[in-house]
């Protein structure tokens, strides 16, 4: 309960700060930092059930259903731990991911395939690979380090800050730059547009729905569209809970083989 109060205070003060900003606009760094926090670092930890629907250009759909656990371990929006357990489709039921997100170096990723009884460390050259076949990238799920791009405030509308981001290492990514629309009140990044060579818009991420959960403004439905393929993925987050107190030990190789039921199971209302 105390935590809840602290957060209420924190979020009201955030709102207060936001209101104040009408008089004095925050700096670009402040904006992206807050947005990054709102998008990926609210609470000390959290859990959510995610339903992903992939839709291809001809309208065919596929489903993935998984539960995701998160815990912040670094200081000040730094390193994080993620645990993902697949439930559906049934043929991948029990497949689990463990991700140790590091700021400033490659993440550590493990994958457990129950039918092969195999734990594999996955090493990817970059984080812009598909998340289990969806239009989401790993980076969209776990967040992109702020230090990787140069941020510029290109526009301030009545409701949004529009930030343009140019990668410091263009060879590490497939885009040339991306623009983010950050809500002035909530600091939620509500829309992201990725551009390729020749200013070709090829990918968008939209926050379709959000709710205040446990005192945090939380996106509950997101859509990633790939304008090149004509496909998109909708991700619905349900049964979200923050500050569950999930211990760090849950994010271990052991949990890959033996799911931590206590933390995975749906919170009782």
């Amino acid at each position: 309960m105390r935590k809840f109060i602290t957060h209420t205070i924190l979020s009201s003060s955030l709102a207060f700060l936001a209101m104040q900003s009408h008089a004095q606009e925050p700096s670009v760094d402040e904006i992206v930092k807050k947005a990054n926090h709102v998008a990926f670092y609210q609470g000390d930890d959290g859990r959510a059930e995610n339903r992903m629907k992939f839709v291809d250009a001809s309208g065919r759909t596929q489903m993935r259903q998984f539960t995701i656990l998160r815990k912040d371990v670094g200081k000040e929006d730094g390193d994080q731990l993620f645990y993902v357990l697949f439930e559906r489709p049934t043929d991948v039921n029990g497949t689990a991911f463990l991700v140790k997100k590091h700021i400033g170096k490659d993440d550590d990723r493990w994958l457990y395939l129950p039918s092969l009884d195999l734990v594999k460390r996955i090493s990817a050259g970059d984080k812009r690979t598909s998340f289990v076949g969806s239009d989401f990238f790993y980076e969209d799920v776990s967040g992109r380090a702020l230090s990787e791009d140069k941020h510029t405030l290109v526009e301030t509308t009545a409701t949004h800050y529009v930030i343009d981001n140019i990668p410091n290492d263009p060879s590490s990514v497939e885009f040339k730059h991306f623009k983010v629309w950050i809500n002035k009140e909530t600091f939620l990044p509500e829309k992201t547009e990725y551009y390729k060579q020749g200013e070709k818009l090829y990918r968008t991420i939209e926050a379709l729905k959000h709710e205040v959960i446990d005192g945090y403004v939380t996106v509950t439905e997101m859509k990633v569209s790939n304008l090149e393929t004509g496909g998109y993925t909708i991700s619905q987050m349900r049964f979200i809970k923050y500050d569950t107190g999930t211990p760090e030990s849950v994010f271990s190789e052991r949990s890959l083989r033996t799911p931590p039921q206590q933390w995975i199971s749906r919170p009782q209302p």
Partner: protein
Amino acid sequence: MKDKITNFAIEHPKRVLWITLIFTLLVASQIVRIHIDTDPENMLPEDQHDRMVHNQIKQRFQLYDLIVVGIVNQHGIYNPQSLENLRKLSDDIKQIEGVVPHELMSLATVDNISQEGPGTIRFNWMLPKENISEENARQIENNVSRLPMFLDSLVSSDGKAAAIYVPIEAKEYSHEISQQIQALTDQLQGSDEYHITGLPVAEDTFGIEMFKQMAISAPLAGLAIFLLMWVFFRSFSLITAPMLVAMSTVLVTMGLLIGTGFTVHIMSSMIPIFLMPIAVVDSIHILSEFAEIHKPGSRVKDSIRHVVGNLFQPMLFTSVTSAVGFASLAFTPIPPVQVFGLFVAFGIGLAFILTIVFIPAYIAVLSPASIEKLAEKHAANESALDLRGPLNVFHALSGIYAKPAISAALVISVFSFIGIKHIGINDNPVRWFKEDHRIRVADKILNEHFAGTYDAYLVLRKDNSAQELVFDKALNELASNNPAVAQLMKEVPETFNNFSEKTSWYIQAADDASFDATDDSDIIALDTVIALAEKNQSSSKYFASPEALAYVEDLQAALQTGGVVGKSNSFADLVKTVYRELQGGNEDFYRLPDNARQTAQTVLSYQSSHRPADLWHFVSPDYNEVAVWMQLKSGDNKDMAEVIQQVNNYVKHNPLPAEVSLEWGGLTYINVIWQDAMVKGMIYSLMGAFVMVFAVMVILFRSVIFGALAMIPLSFTIAFIYGLIGWIGKDYDMPVAVLSSLTLGLSVDFAIHFLDRARTIQSETGNWKETLALMFDEPGIAILRNAIVISIGFLPLLAAPLVPYNTVGIFLASIMAASCVVTLILLPAILTVLQKMIFKDKQKDKQTTEVLSHA
């Protein structure tokens, strides 16, 4: 009627000339709206079954037509410079308008799957994004050698060539895109060679060249005909007339075709070339006769009336029969051939009208002086080219040596029929170019290095409608016992893309409903729905099962030994590769997983790569169908047909699993289908035309015997020409198929002229010997002249860089030569032998001829 027309033309010649000119220009002005269509796919109607299946396969598996770009380096492409070039070229090609960037395949756009220390699997771009070192290059070589999906597809196994597969939005952009790729390669450094090929490029480039040829070959043929006529008639002003008739016919026909909204296809681009000789032929008859009949001092108008009176009937007969021959193409199942046939038929009709209206009017406006000059010249300078010599030989062969001539013809017929049996049906759009054309060169080199640049797709599909019925029944039962399930059933959408989506819907909807439900029995029932749907979803993923994949694997192995398929890639290959890497990379694990769950989880790991969507080129998202991508080294239809046969044989001995069906797609396959339709269509059309022409002959000659006689030269010529094709081993391809109707149309012309004149003269002389002598005078000269003009007139087609044009040139010449010789030897020889039988009722014949000519 015909007298009225001719009289009008002679009395108001200027009006006729003006009307013709204005009409021609008016219709011809439509030509600027030309829209070229070189897509052989359009040889099939849009709703043709195989074409629809092909397009559905392309859509379902997100496949595109491919341009193949090859980078060849004799010292191997695994060096920093070549790999940098490959990467730069891949990146730059992606920027080209009309290219589908995310589907471009080359070493620069794919992931490497590899082991990185124990227990670690790595997905990373095959090529570093910058600064490729010697060591990188060696590493890449090593990596590729471990990935069977890439070897011989992206890099040749000799390491000397790398390929970029450029998917394009539409085939009609291929030539333009290939030009842009060429421009990009020109800027690259180093000693790499670049080659661009692929069916779409060949087809589209052919269209561009064809367009050029329409502007070069057809006028050149016209010029050659013009010059030859000059040799015969020595009067430019006179021979300009047939040229004008030909030009007007071609312009109006093409103008009408384009103006009525038809695209100019490979077939219709040949209309001018086909119409030109036909349009000129009748005029030559008129001119020839006019030059013979018109003597200095006589009235021009009288001579014209006389000539037209003499020739109207045979010209009408020939025009009707030729038109019928071409119009019969409308019965083929191939739209461009139908259009071709109908418009050529129209052109023939137009040429006939112009010949009897325009030519008399034209002669009538010529100054009497120039006509006098012509008549004098003709009388004095009978021939720059003496045709009497050959005609005397023909005369002898058909008179004194009639029986040996007929025997020789019979022997030749036998040989022809043997030749026809040897005809090989085959075509290949790449071979429409000559061997030294850059596309042919690229095709040869790239197919030496790679598994093949020609694509075909074999799709295996599982029908799970039976399973769905059982599922529906079970649901209905649950719904009848539980209100929550019944409620669920009310909300179900009417249609799903597939069964898997339906089960997904039930899983989610029941899950949501169960969350809101309070009644225990509802929760239990909804959980039953979830369990049922999940069970059905898993079992409906047929091609995740090892049995199904094993069938695919075995089929692929059988095809590999067949020798025509260079390589095939399938979902099984992909699964085996990822499975091996998951199991530590040992070759022993290059095999199918043990069960469907293992397959699904293997696939899930692959989906964490940069290009997870490549999966869906091989398997559908519901795992209900798989596409086997076959690479063929040859685009010859006979090779593709061989592959189809191999698959059919395999399936015969190894029946498809229950409820699994098989479908084909890919451009190489589609080419076989339209060729097949074309060959069959042409045979039916030829037979149909034969019967119709025969009927027309019988009606026009009012004699079954004469009708039958008229069919002899064309039957012999067709048999001879196709026998020849069989003997010399020339493939029976598109132009050869179409030539059959030309043969029919042109061969019958000579026969009609010959028979009509022979009958008329015979009715006057009553003595065959005398008639025969007279026949080898003016009528013989006209026929021979015609044959020579057209045969030689079309030789410029041999200079065209496009093989189908060469084929048409050679065969037009051969057809004219053969049917002329047959008409002038075989036909009179038969008449000589059978004269008593044929001319026994000459009086009656004379009457009908008179009736006809006065009709």
